């Protein structure tokens, strides 16, 4: 199915076990990610959805071992047989771009403004290609750019400011796929783009996934965009996964009250002219509410929710929810 993928003794491409991420602040420990576990099989498109401050980006950074002090992380991120969190810098350098690529949030602003695209792009390739393969650099760049629908002749000699937001995002995606990685993590890949460009980028990602057999983890606060191409969804709230399952199941019958709120906040073009939204604000991660972190905003709150942290329970095929309503 996937030509670039070696036969691996484990089924899962990525397995995250009890991953926690905290930041040491002057007010105390900020718990951004709390005991998150999940698995990704080859060919999956997994969406991670949640509001700002739910820990999505910290989770992504931990998956790629990008965290630096004052951040601290605990747990295991198994990529094949390796634990990404215990690799040294040299091993990480070999892993990144080649096996594991990252498209950071606001990535159109992550290009170096004073370097031509070809110089930044070839820098990545030089690090990973052998001496003998270096003459392929130009061809690899042209191939990757054409895969994302850009004309290499116009783009390679350009500076970032000469390209539109959508084109810059394509350049970053071209870099991310250029070395045929097994997994790409994209953090809010379309958030700053307008709807037309947004659709183009999502369509392109879906197309690339099909062509190259990519495995993707997409992070967004907008569940309607993730629903377009993800087959699995993880819903995060205050650093915890509160619901997971196949995306069609989650969208058609959300179980966790927070997920229901997210699904209801999607404005629609037909039907009643109301956007539901979720009352209240996301919690402060330093002083988390006791019990279920969602209880101050939850309309189904029970007395137990204030004191008891709900653990994930299975509520069907590949479906888990962390809410006391489903005990």
């Amino acid at each position, binding site marked *: 199915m996937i030509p670039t993928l070696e036969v691996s003794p484990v089924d899962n491409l990525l397995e995250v076990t009890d991953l926690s991420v905290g930041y040491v602040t002057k007010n105390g420990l900020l718990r951004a990610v709390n005991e998150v576990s999940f698995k990704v099989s080859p060919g999956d498109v997994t969406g991670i959805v949640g509001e700002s401050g739910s820990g999505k980006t910290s989770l992504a950074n931990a998956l790629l071992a990008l965290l630096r002090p004052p951040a601290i992380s605990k747990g295991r991120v198994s990529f094949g047989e390796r634990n990404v969190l215990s690799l040294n810098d040299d091993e990480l350098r070999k892993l990144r771009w080649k096996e594991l690529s990252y498209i950071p949030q606001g990535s159109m602003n992550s290009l170096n403004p004073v370097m031509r695209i070809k110089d930044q792009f070839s820098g990545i390739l030089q690090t990973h290609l052998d001496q003998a393969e270096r003459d392929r650099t130009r061809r690899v760049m042209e191939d990757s750019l054409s895969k994302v629908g850009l004309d290499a002749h116009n783009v390679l000699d350009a500076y970032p400011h000469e390209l539109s937001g959508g084109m810059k995002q394509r350049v970053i995606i071209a870099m991310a796929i250029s070395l045929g990685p097994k997994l790409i993590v994209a953090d809010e890949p379309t958030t700053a783009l307008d*709807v037309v460009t947004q659709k183009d980028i*999502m*369509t392109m990602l879906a197309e690339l996934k099909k062509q190259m057999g990519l495995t993707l983890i997409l992070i967004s606060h907008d569940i309607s965009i993730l629903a377009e191409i993800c087959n699995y969804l993880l819903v995060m709230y205050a650093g915890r996964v509160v619901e997971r399952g196949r995306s069609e199941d989650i969208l058609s019958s959300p179980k966790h009250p927070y997920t229901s709120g*997210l699904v209801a906040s999607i*404005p629609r073009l037909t039907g009643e002219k109301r956007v539901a939204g979720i009352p209240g604000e996301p919690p402060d991660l330093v002083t988390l509410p006791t019990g279920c972190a969602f209880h101050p905003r939850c309309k189904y709150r029970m007395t137990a929710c204030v004191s008891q942290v709900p653990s994930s329970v299975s509520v069907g095929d590949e479906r888990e929810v962390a809410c006391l309503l489903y005990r």
Partner: protein
Amino acid sequence: MDEPLVLKAEKVTKHFEAKTGLLKRTVIRAVESVDLELHKGEILALVGESGSGKTTLGRVIAGMYSSTNGGVSYFGTDTGDAPSLQDKSTKRRFAAQQVQYVFQDPFSSLPPHKKIKSSIYEVLKLYRPKADAKGLEDETKKLLELVGLTPVEQMKEKFPHELSGGQRQRVSFARALAVRPKVLIADEPVSMLDVSIRAGILELMKRLRDGEGLSIIYITHDITTARVISDTIYVLYRGRVVEKGPIDTVVQKPLHPYTITLISSLPGLTLGSGVHVPGRDAPAAKDRSLRSEPPGIDHCVFYARCPIAIELCARERPALRGLADGREVACFLAGSETT
């Protein structure tokens, strides 16, 4: 619309000059000859993608930019030659009392070193020179209450960095309302907020219209939130209005190929059923350049990207024309076969 007009823009044009070389200058035609009418209590959505000129038009209307051509009248007073508005600062203040602007980015539009109460108090003081301190403090609290920043006693003592994006955007609304404007221009007020927080801000805009009788120009690239709160929609492309009319008429059955493109780009979930969108799966057009065409070439602004363009579109620019359902559309083909 039976309500009286509060604002009328006539043939508003705004060009910018950009240096493109040592001596070379290029004219960027941000807004081209736009007519716009806003009535009391109306929420009007200006919709288009990045670079369509919606923000420039909003800023011309707010008096932040002067127009290259054409003008904006508020209640029949033209800002340009009202007799009492000799010097620039009185003119600015007059415009400000007519129109207030709420910016997209709630993270950078509030003074970071001021408590919420002082950033509102100062605006009040500027516009009510005769009121005493007690009266202004009461009004500050009333404004915070109005935009839903409760409990007021706690919220007014906070600094912007202690608030979430949604709360900060509410402060921006309170500051704008402190001037008691007739018109509010909200420029992408929710695009930087979480989807779940947007609903509250949209509700707030609706409440301000219903309760305070404000007229609102809602600038956005998101046609779905526009539908939820607006009465009228103007779709802009490359500085020109390509389609306008009652929002339900336009959204349920878009006729201009650009409006169709905008709607068909929405995620499937938001579309629902019953919306007639021809060519939802049509391939995306390649030419995305927003560079201005050289003067003298008169073709449809959407010509290069249009999937249904005919030979006439390359020679002539279609004018806005009214259809029986109350909308106006600038396309030779729209409404010819399907209505």
